[in-house]
């Protein structure tokens, strides 16, 4: 590393502290607000430290709506989305990287279309598709009469199971495996399924971890899709419930901020524990592009 003058260094550290402060401050404000009361918030002189820490705001905020259920919905939807999509993506990635079949490379190229289509554009037709799922939600065999998969867990999960990016990443990762591994396995009489299950899948941990972090964050944070397809309050996810909080009740800022804190703290804890994977996942996205 080159030498920099100490004064210049101090200046740049100060700039960094300033920018980091701007990045973090909204969260500090959120926590501070969530522990105050209305009178404190409306005081002409602002103070970041509350007079008393009013933790009672949290149970109060959670009493508006069934937050245990919203959390359960979000966890359920996120877990199934992540498990199904990563399983299917790794299977497809393995096939595209290691199995020989007709049209393999064309099928792979076609699957990359998913990377180029903004999901927002597809929401309307997916809504129509879900409404006409046969035999679901009161529908007859032609998909008429009922709601189909609208307002259901499947409706929240299914559109996110395909993931072209995951397939792409798994394929690239599996291509780096030495061929000798496959040769040895074939000599031992392993089938493709066994090779996938006992060799490829166990060795996929790094790429799995990054994709779990990416996919779980994306699903947990999803707002638009639950907004469109859920109709009853019992199907709400955490994000949707939070977004409706300010519209359904008169705004009490300390409660709104408490609810916001509750909605983001689980994810932040996971982020701090597994930061590496969050960053790695994102970096691979960028470098590969």
């Amino acid at each position, binding site marked *: 590393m080159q030498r920099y003058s100490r004064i210049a260094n101090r200046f740049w550290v100060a700039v960094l502290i300033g920018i980091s402060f701007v990045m973090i401050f909204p969260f500090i404000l959120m926590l501070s607000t969530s522990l105050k009361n209305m009178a404190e918030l409306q005081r002409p002189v602002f103070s970041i430290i509350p007079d008393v820490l009013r933790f009672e705001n949290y149970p109060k905020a959670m009493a508006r709506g069934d937050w245990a259920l919203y959390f359960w919905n979000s966890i359920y939807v996120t877990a199934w989305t992540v498990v199904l999509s990563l399983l299917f993506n790794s299977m497809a990635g393995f096939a595209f990287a290691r*199995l020989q079949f*007709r049209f393999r490379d064309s099928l792979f190229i076609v699957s990359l279309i998913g990377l180029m289509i*903004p999901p*927002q554009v597809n929401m309307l037709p997916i809504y129509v598709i879900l409404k006409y799922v046969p035999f679901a939600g009161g529908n007859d065999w032609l998909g008429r009469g009922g709601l189909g998969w609208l307002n259901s867990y499947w409706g929240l999960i299914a559109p996110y199971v395909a993931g072209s990016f995951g397939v792409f990443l798994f394929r690239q990762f599996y291509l780096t495996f030495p061929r000798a591994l496959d040769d040895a396995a074939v000599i031992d009489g392993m089938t*493709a399924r066994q090779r996938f299950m006992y060799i490829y899948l166990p060795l996929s941990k790094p790429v799995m971890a990054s994709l779990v972090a990416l996919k779980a964050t994306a699903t947990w944070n999803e707002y638009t899709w639950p907004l469109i397809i859920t109709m009853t309050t019992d199907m709400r996810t955490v994000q949707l419930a939070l977004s409706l909080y300010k519209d359904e009740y008169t705004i009490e800022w300390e409660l709104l901020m408490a609810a916001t804190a509750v909605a983001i703290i689980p994810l932040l804890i996971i982020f701090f524990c597994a930061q590496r994977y969050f960053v790695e996942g994102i970096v691979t996205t960028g470098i590969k592009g």
Partner: protein
Amino acid sequence: MRPTKKLKQYDNTGYLFILPFYVFFAVFIVTPILMNLVLSFTRFNLKEMKFIGLQNYLNLFEDEFFVRSLVNTGLYTFFTLAFTMLISLFLAILLNRGLTGTPLFRTSSFIPHVVSMVAASMIWYWMYEPAYGIINRFLAVVGISGKLWLHDEKLALVSIIIMSIWKFTGYYMVIYLAGLQTIPSYLYEATAIDGASEWQKIWYVTIPMLRPVTFFLFVTGVINNFNVFEQVNILTQGGPMNATTTVVHQIFIRAFRDFLMGYAAAQAILVLIIVAILTLMFFKYGSQEQDVEVA
């Protein structure tokens, strides 16, 4: 050369392995694109469907809300992307100097990216609050009178842009940082021998070497920002007086409030076309630049 011929033989198990992915891919990605196209030529309200030819597309440009949303989306995309990229590049270069506390700074800039747009919007909704919000309180200390921000026709879009820059900078910065670490240090050493200043190194080595990363961030950034919806729907619902309505917000309103499914599908197709044209343009421009460099 390969010892096993067996692996080279065609084998149908491959289809079984890609089947689950392809089913979901076909139903939820390919079919919707085709459906959008078909629906865009119809009048459809989920009950009755009638073929009306190009009428939806003709109506698009007489729809003042849609025209407004195109302008807003363009402005939003341009300013959000420009500032996000400049600030994140600056931050990444700073963080790459190995100053004290670098990991801490990196993590703190990344947190806005991890939290949901809903949560971020809630916090900024409170910060923009005209009477007690922190931003107006701060302005008062400096001696500037408070603004209405999200409720002000002129400032609403700016407010959303500022929040979005804050939200996205960390993500761009992390990718830039990864790009910076791939630049070989001998390039810097060579320019140092030539007597280049710090700024010259950044200008003549760092920025040109980062071009692929910049290109990637730019293309994906255009696509993502052009589809802005969440912040808008949460913070302003497109208001005041349509000052913040965006293209995807219009699609959402037409499809799920007015149930003009055919019309909304036409809007979606137009978005796809615009995004495709922009992407192709950038790719063409990007490769041309590289040709020049080689020659």
